[in-house]
């Protein structure tokens, strides 16, 4: 027989062989085991098991209760309400053999936990009944594990689909957006517009830009989440990134968005590099800074800090402005969540911070926000780093796909 017996089966067999069980019953037991091991675990095993026990062991009647599915499967003819009978065996955990009626009752247990019951009527050795209960327990368990696995797989698949749809949707938006942008900016460049016309044209232009930004963010989210869902970090492009040059680049790229604020940069120690996906980290920091510029008091100071300790790199952006209430502090990192204050103050999509969260999570890091010591809010992002082993940096570089 080609199938390998799962653990627990041997014990069931030893029990049955111990006494009483006839050679024919032992053969049937083997046959039953073989067939349960080869069973298609995509469908629930109960009905098939009941049927097989009935024919293989030439029993009068069989009832099998699966407590997880809350279903009773029967084969043969029962004169009593076997549903209740089988469920009572499970509820009262009563295993016994009645010689007068020829009924054997067994609780099906996985370890010590009852997961169902088996009721047989016919000529079968009590030890064989116990062995059967053991084999059924294992089969139920295998079915559950398979079902679980395929459910997780189905969820992953759905998530992948969602990300793909989001991605193609976002790309499909680009063409009409390009035409709108070209038309609106073209109108403005051609001149000859009255003040009112110019105002409307610039509104179209502005809103097209906003829609484009939203599209970009959706694209980014879709990509980040599809990475996430596959459960691997393989698509992270790790490289040694110098904190100073990264921050310079980000601040420079903010352009006029940061015009109303002074940005102070603190890097400790002054020159350090750490392995990360440059694009993701720069997305995260850009998001933090953008938010800081958007929601802070005009002309206030924004402080961007990067610190490296032995175990992590901590990036933070502090700005002065309305303090985010504690009840909002976790939820603002959820997609589409916007605080009531933010909703009225500045244009935003409610996606940015969830991107930041995913970007950190992809590195095994985390994000949070706290009230600043001198007022305002500080947004943090922590990236764990391997200890100072000299090879760690080069390893990270070699890992680039």
């Amino acid at each position, binding site marked *: 027989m080609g199938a390998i017996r799962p653990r627990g089966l041997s014990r069931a067999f030893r029990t049955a062989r111990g006494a009483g069980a006839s050679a024919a019953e032992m053969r049937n037991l083997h046959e039953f085991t073989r067939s349960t091991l080869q069973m298609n675990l995509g469908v629930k095993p109960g009905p098939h098991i009941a049927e097989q026990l009935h024919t293989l062991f030439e029993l009068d009647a069989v009832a099998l209760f699966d407590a997880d599915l809350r279903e009773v499967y029967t084969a043969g003819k029962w004169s009593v309400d076997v549903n209740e009978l089988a469920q009572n065996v499970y509820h009262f955990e009563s295993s016994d053999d009645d010689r007068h009626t020829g009924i054997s009752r067994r609780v099906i247990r996985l370890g010590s936990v009852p997961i169902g019951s088996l009721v047989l009527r016919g000529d079968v050795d009590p030890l064989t009944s116990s062995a059967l209960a053991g084999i059924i327990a294992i089969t139920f368990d295998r079915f559950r594990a398979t079902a679980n696995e395929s459910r997780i797989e189905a969820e992953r698949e759905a998530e992948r689909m969602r990300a793909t749809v989001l991605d193609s949707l976002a*790309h499909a938006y*680009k*063409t*009409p*957006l*390009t*035409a*709108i*942008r*070209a*038309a609106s*900016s*073209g*109108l*403005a*460049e*051609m001149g000859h517009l009255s003040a009112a016309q110019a105002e409307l044209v610039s509104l179209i*232009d502005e809103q*097209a830009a906003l829609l*484009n*930004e939203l599209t*970009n*963010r959706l*694209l*980014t989210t879709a*990509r980040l989440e599809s990475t996430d869902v596959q459960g691997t970090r393989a698509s992270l492009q790790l*490289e*040694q*990134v*110098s904190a*100073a*040059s990264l921050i*310079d*680049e980000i*601040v*420079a*790229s*903010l*352009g*006029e968005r940061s*015009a109303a604020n002074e*940005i102070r940069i603190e890097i400790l120690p002054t020159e350090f*590099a750490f392995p990360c996906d440059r*694009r993701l980290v720069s*997305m995260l920091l*850009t*998001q933090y800074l953008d938010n800081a510029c958007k929601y802070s008091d005009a002309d206030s100071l924004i402080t961007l800090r990067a610190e490296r300790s032995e175990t992590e790199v901590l990036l933070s952006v502090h700005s002065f402005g309305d303090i985010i209430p504690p009840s909002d502090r976790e939820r603002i990192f959820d997609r589409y969540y916007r605080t009531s204050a933010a909703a009225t103050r500045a244009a935003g999509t409610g996606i940015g911070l969830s*991107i930041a969260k995913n970007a950190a999570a992809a590195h095994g890091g985390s994000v949070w926000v706290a009230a600043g010591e001198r007022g305002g809010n500080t947004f943090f992002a922590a990236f764990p780093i391997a200890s100072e082993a000299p090879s760690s940096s080069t390893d990270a570089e070699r890992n680039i796909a």
Partner: protein
Amino acid sequence: MTTSAIRVLVVDDEPAIRRALRPPLTELGFEMTEASRGEMALELLRTEPFDAVLLDVNMPGIGGIETLRRIRSMAPRLPVIILTVRDREEEKVGALEMGADDYVTKPFGVRELVARIRAAVRRVQAPPASEDAVIEIGEIRLSPSRRSVTKRGHAIHLTRKEFDILHCLMSRAGRVITYSRLLTAVWGADCREEVEYLRTFIRQLRKKIEDDPAHPRYMLTDIYVGYRFADQQMLDDQDASATQSLSTSDAEPASNLSIGTGQ
């Protein structure tokens, strides 16, 4: 600027984009011809003279990249500006290394597009400068023969590599130089992957060249693609937009140069 109309061939499979471009380009002194496929564009290029090509990368048929390759083999110097989308940096880099003059990210503003086309045409029409000619852009003056750089007349001390980088960028001012091209030019082909190394040098250079390294005026970053040194026209545009936006801070790089920052 050019006295006669610039003849531009717009190659894009999306009719809406071609339709949107025609009126403003015509109004702004261009003579626009359309093609919906690369194959069609190549056919037109064989029979008609053009000053510039605007080429979409994602098209059915042979596609933008193959079209570019074929254009380059028949017209090595014809300015080609590719149209691409934000998250396709490899595509931009690939097209630039295959000889595209510049790229514009969809969705783009007409002002930016026109500036790019004009700049590319201007570069081709300019007489080729000799290797040793002094380059002067804005307040920066670089003398290749003396290996010296001055800003507002004051000498700036640069290391050998810093000078080489600056020379490479300034001699192609206005054009984006990809990381790998810059690395290859200065350090050799073995180092073409060492982008982080290059970033460190650029950072040092900015400290020496720029008034405000956080808001560079000369050494601009095309994120994930490369660097470009502003040409005179770009500096003028920066000044114009700075006065226009009543910004109190330093002039910003033209908005089109901060590609990929909107995430």
